[in-house]
């Protein structure tokens, strides 16, 4: 069967995008989730809501605003100017920014829940054992919230792999740069390459199944360990 030889390119690109985005998400979502879980600030729910907006917003709407923001006349264009570019739209970096915003709620929510479920007590215990807040965070809060981190990372990763609307708006369809899996499937159907579309689509079904299954197993294991 004569499969198109460049079918692996969108797969590799999607995985690369998902890895970079997930790592960035961990970096941003962890302090954010901690603050949302611990702060008694009255406006924190406003921030939480803002972060959660991508859950209900049509991806094309988010993509549209991102396109404006990343374009030559937006902050993204200014940022790109720092290294001699003209725009962040239609670049891999732009896709990363889009993915991070789009997948943020999937990362923040489980981590926040895990921090909240822990309560104040473990941090108090750590403090009475001479642990500074910084040490207590890394040696108590993070290990205890491990299931939340795993769930968040898996969801964030999977969600980035599958995104379509945002990518189409800000990434276009540039092979090797912005042509990710979901866009490639769309492309193959458009150009009547059904064998390739089937392969990618079927692969995504298997991938999704594996993701949900592994998450359930992880949760089960941790539920047993912490009783």
């Amino acid at each position, binding site marked *: 069967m004569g499969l198109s030889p460049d079918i692996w390119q969108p797969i590799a690109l999607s995985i690369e995008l998902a890895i970079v985005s997930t790592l960035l998400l961990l970096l941003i979502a962890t302090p954010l989730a901690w603050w949302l879980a611990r702060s008694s600030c009255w406006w924190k729910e406003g921030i939480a809501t803002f972060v959660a907006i991508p859950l209900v917003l049509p991806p094309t709407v988010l993509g549209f605003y991102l396109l404006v923001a990343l374009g030559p006349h937006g902050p993204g264009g200014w940022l790109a100017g720092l290294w001699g570019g003209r725009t962040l739209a239609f670049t891999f970096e732009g896709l990363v920014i889009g993915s991070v915003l789009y997948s943020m709620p999937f990362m923040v929510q489980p981590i926040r829940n895990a921090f909240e479920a822990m309560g104040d007590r*473990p941090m*108090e*215990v*750590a403090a*009475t054992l001479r*642990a500074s*807040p910084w040490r207590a965070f890394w040696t108590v809060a993070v290990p*205890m919230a491990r299931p939340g981190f795993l769930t968040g990372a898996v969801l964030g990763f999977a969600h980035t792999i599958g995104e379509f609307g945002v990518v189409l708006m800000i990434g276009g369809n540039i092979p090797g740069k912005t042509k990710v899996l979901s866009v490639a499937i769309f492309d193959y159907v458009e150009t009547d390459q059904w064998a390739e579309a089937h392969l990618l689509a079927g692969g995504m079904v298997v991938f999704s199944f594996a993701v949900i299954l592994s998450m359930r197993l992880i949760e089960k294991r941790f539920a047993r360990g912490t009783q």
Partner: protein
Amino acid sequence: MTAPGRIEVAFRGTVGRFSLDAGFDVPAAGVTAIFGPSGCGKTTVLRCIAGLQRVADGTCAVDGAVWQNGAIFQPPYQRPIGYVFQEASLFAHLSVRGNLLYGAPKDAKGQSFDEVITLLGLAPLLDRAPHNLSGGERQRVAIGRALLSQPRLLLMDEPLSALDRQSKDEILPFLERLHATLALPVIYVSHDMAEVERLADHLVLMAAGRVLASGRLAALQSDISLPLAQGREAAVSLEAVAESYDAADGLAKFSVDEGAFQVPSPPIAVGERRRLRILAGNVSLATSPQRSTILNVLPARILSASESSLHEVTAVLGLGQDGNGARLLARITRRSWNLLGLSEGMPVLAQVKGVALTDRQA
């Protein structure tokens, strides 16, 4: 206000809807119990001492070091405390060993790991996970964890109240031994007078966010103006020394200040110190010697008395002809009090029907 050898605290402020105005000054040695009914602010005071809670108007100085005063506020992790919470609160992600070593400095000087393991009987538990321990075992690990952080003050918030009777009985001897082995001041919050009588040297009585009285346990127990002496379980704790042991009858003779008691006891060496507990309801009074089955009849003098209820009188007695010895409480009916024509200052014979011997080595 920063005397060495003292624990001086005063906390004033509102915590939630609760108003707190509590201060006391006790020696930084031995066990100080904070006693009072649930919701009287005992735990809040303890949390303030630890720095886990901050009231605006608070001072806290321990053995010459100021932890809080005006703008000075040391965060809890900079205070040399050990804190045992009501629930053990072990770290679920660490083994028993990991929990024990979490707060232990690398170059431990004071309590060594092996000492604490032996004292609390933790050796068989070291590699277990916290969720595989019983309630009593968990609380023992929590106590060990606090001790190994090399504290200079141990704070315990009702460490036994979440446990069943059996686990309590398992831990109390450890706490009594703790006191005998370590020279570590302890502040122990409790609403259980039986625990306090076994463990405490000093007592801080609290009610509704205020301190009613503080001082030596024995002094507060026999203070007729405090609710303690009027309660159903009113009792005194006496420090006693074993004088002799009669193996035939299984009786030990213990001497206290200006008196002696014969108490059923397992064999005990002469000179050993024990704490005796005598309930007010187990002491009756006579004006002349009479034949009776009561072993312990001691000359004493009535120092003061007050009516505890419609039909009862509680009297404070001082042992010895002049009443200068150890204090006892006697709970008798008002009718007997009037029939015998008893009054303050009168010499009497105290007939003591029951003396409880605690394991605590005084």
